[in-house]
């Protein structure tokens, strides 16, 4: 209790440490210098780009000539190479289980974690349940373990997103949906005795309800955190929970496993349950289910 009081007092003191502003004259001088440097740098950069474009122009003429030569000579052996490439790609997918997907908003291709049932972006803030339907988590802001999170849905593969609902939680770092209605967030709250808890929606993100998760007795008194559940089928899912035991930061991992689509969860401290096995590797956990493998940070 005393420790708790000391920590709170320390936090208050830290929060109230003076935060003076830069002196306005000094600020104006620095800003002037930054603007000057910025113009100078931009000018230099444009110059470099012009030179690059010129050399690319020359290079493309040479490439065109080489390409024509390559096209004629490679016609005979092309079938064989295609087969080799296909074999290479399938090995790569098996190892990393990442799939490229067009991120329409950012106009770029990004890799998505693929469980065979769901696809997540690398931060876990977007989940797709099929090619077209996905959900996105957005932190609208807040503070002091009380943030507002918005859940948006897409039915056109990420071209448009429509906000479905908001919920106020302590700390959420990802979301998971198993169909258009049922979805999960994991709340990492200062409520030490129960955290992390599962926040569940059954109507596509409109309403949310808290569901407590089991905690192994050995880890009840220690700090624990989790990101988002990953499902391999509509019923089999896992939620890795990380924690640390003492001041030296001895970390631990246990797995919450569901076999009924998230209705009930079992805490497993070994590294295997039915078709599921997992291993810890630094800050990552590698999970195997039947012939699939995924890595969660």
């Amino acid at each position, binding site marked *: 209790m005393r420790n708790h009081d*000391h*920590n709170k*007092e*320390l*936090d208050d*003191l*830290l*929060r*109230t*440490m*003076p*935060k*003076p*502003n*830069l002196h306005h004259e*000094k*600020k104006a001088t*620095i*800003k002037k*210098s*930054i*603007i000057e*440097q*910025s*113009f100078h*740098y*931009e000018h230099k*950069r444009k110059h470099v780009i012009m030179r690059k474009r010129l050399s690319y122009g020359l290079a493309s003429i040479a490439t065109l000539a080489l390409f024509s030569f390559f096209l004629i000579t490679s016609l005979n052996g092309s079938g064989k190479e295609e087969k080799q490439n296909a074999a290479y790609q399938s090995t790569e997918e098996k190892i990393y289980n990442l799939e490229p997907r067009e991120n329409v908003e*950012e106009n770029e291709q990004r890799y998505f974690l693929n469980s065979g049932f769901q696809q997540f972006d690398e931060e876990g803030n977007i989940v797709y349940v099929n090619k077209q339907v996905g959900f996105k988590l957005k932190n609208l802001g807040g*503070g002091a373990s009380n943030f507002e999170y918005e859940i948006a849905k897409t039915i056109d593969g990420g071209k448009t997103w429509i906000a479905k609902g908001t919920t106020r939680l302590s*700390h959420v*770092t990802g979301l998971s949906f198993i169909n258009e209605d049922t979805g999960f967030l994991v709340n990492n709250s200062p409520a030490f005795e129960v955290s992390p808890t599962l926040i569940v929606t059954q109507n596509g993100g409109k309403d949310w309800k808290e569901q407590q998760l089991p905690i192994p007795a050995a880890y009840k008194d220690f*700090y624990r*955190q989790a990101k988002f559940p990953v499902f391999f089928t509509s019923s089999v899912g896992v939620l890795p929970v*990380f924690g*640390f035991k003492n*001041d030296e*930061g001895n*970390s631990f991992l246990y797995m919450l496993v569901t076999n009924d689509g998230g209705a009930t969860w079992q805490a497993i401290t070994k590294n295997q349950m039915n078709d599921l096995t997992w291993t810890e590797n630094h*800050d990552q956990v590698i999970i195997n289910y039947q012939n699939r493998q995924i890595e969660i*940070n």
Partner: protein
Amino acid sequence: MSSNRIISEWFEQYSDDIYHFLLYRFGSTDIEDLVQEVFIKAIKGFHAYEEKASPKTWLFSIARNVAVDEYRKRKRLNLGKMIPFEHLHEPKSENTPENILQLQKEHADLFKAIQALKPNYRDVIILRGIKELSVAETAEILKWSENKVRTTLHRARKVLLQKLGGLI
């Protein structure tokens, strides 16, 4: 919007935040040049800036790199002059941070204790404790996992409390 216009707007918005970070990181007031250096580096690196990071966390991560470089530089210079390491943060004039910040007794003790922390601990205390950034933001700035942020903060707070002794 041009990159210089954007950086100039970011300077208006975030220069004080960067100033606070460097002020507490070095415990000295001669850091205005470093604030400038952070934004010059931002101009040069602007084309590599990924919009998925917030400008604030991006600028903080540049400031942290600038601080690490400057710390090494200062340490080398001071070692060259054979000044004992523990005197690195001794005030050199009346223009001390304590005077500028007009610290009350408790804050002054805490200020000194923060300066005595090792750099990693100091970073996490400034970002999480003083600047009140989230665990996710701090992790992004320091390029650590969120787990590491929590563990390091936990240890840093413990060391701080030890240094403050019975004062809290």
